[in-house]
């Protein structure tokens, strides 16, 4: 099957599941109420799916690996830690915590700054390998989680309520106010990534060949890392941390679409991600009657898959 056919089929399947989601049980009397609740939810899932899949895919390209994603390296736990620290330092009633846009901007700025310094260290120092990056990610990730854990133990229970929502992935009650507001920065990031897509293709050839072909590898890497930080912030702000989802989606996209072109891989990965998340959420809501959450399923399946990849040593 040709790649374009596959992409069309996948998009049709995704649209079908969106229709199923939005349309179930609608009639002339209840549609206002149901749609006002369902549209932000579906939109949040679509935005998060795109943010997670695009950021994971381009992150793997610039770090030249197929196994690490920003989430595995602790970007999500960094997000949660920043939320906790904001509550601890500024109080749960501070505008930094209550106002979604302000909170989002501050968090994204801190994340972008920290991730850029991590990558400046990674790329500007001596040649580092994938495993040292993985190791650093695990250390940072558990450091962030420990800091988060420590402060949630000592803060006032009522303040804890303010951060609880951001600590766990949740597709059942998404942050409605933020959904519409997140669209603008998301679209900007996506447009910039699409613009950089042909340069990203050249990065497959390795940094030396890319330089020979006129790519400023460091500059491109820093641009990509800044965009990845914004996307991760959007995804985590909307639905909370989902550790292994990016890994599953990017891996499946690569197996399904045998292509090196980011202009194809990026839209394909978001269609696949949206399809998987919506289908999973639909199953959770309708077949399992909310008895589990989709993030539990994602982390179980994704974690097993991650172990399988490590065991087969398909790291490179």
């Amino acid at each position, binding site marked *: 099957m040709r790649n374009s056919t596959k992409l069309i089929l996948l998009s049709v399947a995704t649209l079908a599941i969106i229709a199923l989601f939005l349309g179930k049980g609608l009639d002339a009397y209840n549609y206002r109420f149901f749609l006002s609740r369902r549209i932000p939810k579906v939109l949040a899932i679509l935005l998060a799916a795109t943010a997670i899949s695009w950021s994971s895919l381009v992150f793997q390209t610039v770090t030249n690996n197929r196994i690490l994603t920003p989430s595995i390296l602790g970007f999500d736990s960094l997000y949660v830690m920043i939320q906790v620290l904001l509550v601890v330092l500024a109080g749960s009633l501070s505008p930094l915590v209550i106002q979604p846009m302000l909170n989002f901007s501050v968090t994204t700025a801190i994340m972008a700054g920290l991730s850029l310094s991590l990558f400046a260290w990674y790329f500007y120092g001596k040649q580092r390998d994938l495993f040292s990056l993985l190791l650093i990610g695990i250390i940072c990730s558990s450091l962030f989680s420990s800091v988060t854990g420590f402060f949630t133990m000592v803060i006032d229970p009522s303040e804890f309520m303010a951060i609880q929502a951001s600590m766990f992935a949740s597709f059942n009650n998404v942050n409605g106010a933020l959904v519409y507001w997140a669209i603008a920065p998301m679209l900007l990031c996506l447009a910039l990534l699409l613009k950089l897509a042909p340069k990203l293709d050249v990065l497959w050839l390795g940094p030396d060949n890319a330089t*020979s072909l006129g790519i400023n590898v460091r500059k491109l890497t820093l641009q990509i890392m800044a965009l990845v930080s914004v996307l991760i912030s959007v995804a985590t702000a909307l639905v909370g941390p989902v550790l292994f989802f990016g890994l599953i989606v990017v891996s499946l996209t690569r197996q399904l679409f045998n292509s090196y072109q980011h202009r194809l891989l990026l839209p394909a990965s978001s269609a696949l991600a949206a399809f998987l998340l919506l289908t999973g959420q639909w199953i959770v809501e309708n077949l399992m009657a909310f008895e589990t959450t989709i993030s539990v399923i994602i982390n179980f399946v994704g974690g097993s898959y991650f172990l399988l990849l490590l065991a087969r040593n398909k790291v490179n």
Partner: protein
Amino acid sequence: MIKLSGLSKKYNDNFVVQDASALFPKGVLTSIIGPNGAGKSTLLSMASRLTNSDAGEVVIADKPLNQWDNAELAKRLAVLRQSNNINMRFTVRELVAFGRFPHSQGRLSARDNEIIDKAMGHLDIQHIANRYLDQLSGGQRQMAFIAMVVAQDTDYIFLDEPLNNLDIKHSVEIMGAIQHLAHEHGKAVVVVIHDINFAASYSDRIIAMKQGQVIKSGDTVEVIDEAVLSDIYEIPFTIREVEGQRICMYYTNPHK
């Protein structure tokens, strides 16, 4: 013309390249020879902006390297390192098409496609154009990478050990193709090469390095000299002319 003057590179207080100067004129195939650790690859990386130098200057077409815009320079200068491990499946044609990236930014025109076909023809690899790189032998893969450099169509071409691990047939074909680029297309081609007889047979000029320094540079007949080579490699050399070409004998076998 590319001019290197007084280039140096240090790693932890040790000079890898020290005060090296050289000229790479157009229309000329220049080989860089020398023992392991002589700094050949480092010199080539500095001349082709893959590595920063600690001292000295690289002037490309009368303009210092640091004044060149990298994207603009990619239309004039191409470089290929020796190990190219790629994490993605490409067909030969897709790989060669990347050579057009500096000119087309990923959108191939009819002219680009023509140049890609010509580049593959130049290395005689059209018959494997649709094969994936991981299905090819080392020699065929190297031919594909060189075809990518040819498709880039630059005035200056740097190749770091293009013959590494290749059999005789592929080596001869690659050297012939490279020589053709210099002589027929007027390009400045610079290769780092280990096989001294390949250097002697194909290059117009040779730069001989030892311990980071340029010991001798000049026309092939000046450098392919018993005294010069014995000094550089620290073993005795015997040089014979066979059908107008200088061939080096350095296989000292005491049991014969």
